[in-house]
């Protein structure tokens, strides 16, 4: 990159305005839902989320069609003084996933979080619908913000929405889980913030594109990288900082669990990807990437083993999230090869596909588990017998989601793992492949444990299973089907995630 050749984004890019819309719409919805309150928050939320869905589609379409990243300088102030929003392929994919999963969670949540009577405001519905809108703002800001401090604000927004979602039911153990989660998350944010301070001290900017040109291996950058990585790892619940996740994700209401496992942990993971691939490409990242992947491998094995040993379904799914997060980190050493190489491209695509596939599959599984727990009155795995016959749709959704986690074709998980396996073999790092295969076997184990139990005949002494409303089951099934069909993306041009890289900085005005 020749100095001075960086073309800074200009305001008024018509497609770039979509990025503003993706952030403004849910924010406006949040403010409106909070002010009108009453029983109207739900309708406001559904309306604004539907709008957000359309915006996400438009963003994906714009990036796909043009083949280059979108950008928008807020207020017409260009970086480094101003803040730019940017959307490359990675962000577009994540934004689409967000719109999809948040939409599904909203539809699923309608049965649990309806206002008690028309126009009557109650605690849980108002909190749920406002927080759902706020979580969308936070996530979209994480996908699109091009400035490290705006990303800090986004991370905090995400924490402030995720924590109350955990303890909506107000029981002591979920409150405790929420508090523990909050302390982890706050610590993570402060460490991240310290890193941004150090980067600013060295280069006088927080803009990702400008930093990527200026960053050189020197003490300030290494310290910043270590601090930010540690903070984000704590927020992503990567082993060994995963302790907060299972109680928090298992204790939340099903709709919230789906949101937390599918999307919220991906926010900080995405920032790690941004950090190492976009902010610090100038750093020799071999050793840190190996370290992250080693922690990921440990998470895959530990999480899977712990999942197998759980007696409660929701805890099993939560530990499975710990394991699946581990897979995401295997991508780092595979994708940090020579920039732009086909192996790296495959690994990056595989890693992001894993994130998307896990998001849809895990949301489906948490929703299905919620339906089952609601119908059974408990979520003990030992007492699941007969569920498959009583709730075939939910059980099918759970099984499909599980199959996507295992990586059966044609699921998104299959394609993701296949790409990662190929990358590890091609780059001669076969040990990561071994971890992936072992983890897959464990995943088989815990998914079949649940499915097998549910297929069994119900004991006559057990209480009758209550029928469950159809909407929630249908939503879970739809998400599971999507995660199963994601692998067909192989038939479409796969390079959407690669739009805008590796030459992220060259964003021309049209």
């Amino acid at each position: 990159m020749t100095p001075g050749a960086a073309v800074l984004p200009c305001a008024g890019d018509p497609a770039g305005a979509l990025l503003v819309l993706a952030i403004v719409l849910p924010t406006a919805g949040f403010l409106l839902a909070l002010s009108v309150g009453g029983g109207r928050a739900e309708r406001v939320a559904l309306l604004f989320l539907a709008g957000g869905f359309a915006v996400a589609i438009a963003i994906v379409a714009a990036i796909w069609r043009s083949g280059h990243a979108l950008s928008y300088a807020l207020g017409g102030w260009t970086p480094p003084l101003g803040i730019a929003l940017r959307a490359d392929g990675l962000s577009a994919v994540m934004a689409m996933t967000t719109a999809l999963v948040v939409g599904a969670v909203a539809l699923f949540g309608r049965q649990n979080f309806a206002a008690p009577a028309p126009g009557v405001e109650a605690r849980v519905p108002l909190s749920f619908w406002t927080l759902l809108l706020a979580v969308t703002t936070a996530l979209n800001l994480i996908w699109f913000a091009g400035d490290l401090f705006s990303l800090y604000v986004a991370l905090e927004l995400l924490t402030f929405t995720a924590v109350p979602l955990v303890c909506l039911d107000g029981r002591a153990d979920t409150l405790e889980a929420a508090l523990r989660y909050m302390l982890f998350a706050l610590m993570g944010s402060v460490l991240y913030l310290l890193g941004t301070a150090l980067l600013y001290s060295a280069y006088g900017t927080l803009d990702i594109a400008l930093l990527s040109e200026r960053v050189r291996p020197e003490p300030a950058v290494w310290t910043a990288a270590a601090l930010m990585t540690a903070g984000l790892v704590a927020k992503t619940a990567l082993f060994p900082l995963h302790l907060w996740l299972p109680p928090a994700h298992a204790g939340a209401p099903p709709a919230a669990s789906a949101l937390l496992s599918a999307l919220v942990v991906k926010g900080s993971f995405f920032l790690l990807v941004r950090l190492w691939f976009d902010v610090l490409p100038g750093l020799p990242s071999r050793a840190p990437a190996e370290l992250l992947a080693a922690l990921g491998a440990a998470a895959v094995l530990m999480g899977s083993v712990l999942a197998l040993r759980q007696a409660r379904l929701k805890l099993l799914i939560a530990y499975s999230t710990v394991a699946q997060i581990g897979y995401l980190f295997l991508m780092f050493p595979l994708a940090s090869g020579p920039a732009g190489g086909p192996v790296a491209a495959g690994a990056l695509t595989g890693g992001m596909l894993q994130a998307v596939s896990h998001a849809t599959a895990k949301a489906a599984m948490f929703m299905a588990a919620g339906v089952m727990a609601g119908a059974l009155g408990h979520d003990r795995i030992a007492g699941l017998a007969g569920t498959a016959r009583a709730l075939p749709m939910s059980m099918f959704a759970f099984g499909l989601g599980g199959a996507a986690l295992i990586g059966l074709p044609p699921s998104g998980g299959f394609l993701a793992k296949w790409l990662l396996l190929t990358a590890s073999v091609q780059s001669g790092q076969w040990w990561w492949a071994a971890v992936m295969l072992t983890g897959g076997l464990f995943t088989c184990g815990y998914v079949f444990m649940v499915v097998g139990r549910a297929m069994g005949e119900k004991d006559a002494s057990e209480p009758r299973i209550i029928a469950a409303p159809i909407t929630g089951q249908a939503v879970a099934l739809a998400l599971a089907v999507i995660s199963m069909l994601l692998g067909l993306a192989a038939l479409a041009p796969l390079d959407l995630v690669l739009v805008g890289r590796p030459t992220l900085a060259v964003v021309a005005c049209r």
Partner: protein
Amino acid sequence: MTFALAFDCGLAVLILAMAIWTIAARTTFPAVVGFVAYGLLLTLVWMRLAAPDVALTEAAIGGGLTGVLLLGATSRLRATEPPAVSERPSVPFRLAVAGLCTLLSAAIAAVVLLLPDPAPTLAPEAAAKLSLTGVGNAVTAVLLAYRALDTLLESAVLLLALVGVWSLAPDRFWGGAPRSLALRHRDGSLSLLGQVLPPIGIVLGVYIVWVGADAPGGKFQGATIIGAMWVLTMMAGLQTPPEISQAWVRVILVAGAAFFLAVGIAGFWLAGAFLAYPTGFAKSLIVAIEVALTLSVAATLGLLVAGPPARPVRT
């Protein structure tokens, strides 16, 4: 120079002493006292670092509101506080953490000593564009023009925290008022303070918002003072916290951020970009946003201190 350095050294030593006290004190109350002292001292540091805007914020929030919040929690949890020595983490664990933290401090200290000279800065650029915003205070220009998105979202963060706090209410109290902040024993001199201080505080708060465009000050600082004065009148028993379901409460809370957002969206058409201000109107719009945000932020801060609803709705 030497006297200045002596002043700085004294300040640094005092701050470190307060920090160590805050971490090492055996029980919570003295630790929180140490923390409030720490916040007050940091205000002086911010002045020494030529950041009067931050000093105002720190004086208002760091020592003031945060201290009050922590102190309220301390007194309510005091009965449950176990004797100081019970179930400490093991010594090896503490040593390991101490080692890690020392390493962290050393790394940051090393980076501080190795900082580039001259330091990279955006000051010239911020100054060069200042005329486009019409305001005279560069920090205000950063907060409301160059990086307006952060400020907009920050006001959303405050509201979100309030929703989070409210969501912790028992179901049957939803829509009701937070618990009373008044001292149990009515006190004549406190009532007097509660009557005299708030008007002065509100005048000062408004003044600080008003001059914020051109001199040190701004909405968060002013709003914090106003919010604190509101809490003071509630503590003096002159006012009670409002019911959170009332329409006017919601409107006041949301108004600032909503107005900011509306101006931002209007920028699409009037100035060619989201959050841009039309030429010639920048300063008046910035002041208008600040005024709108002041009321909302003051109300939000006051209600954050008051806590979740704890009384049933009066019918």
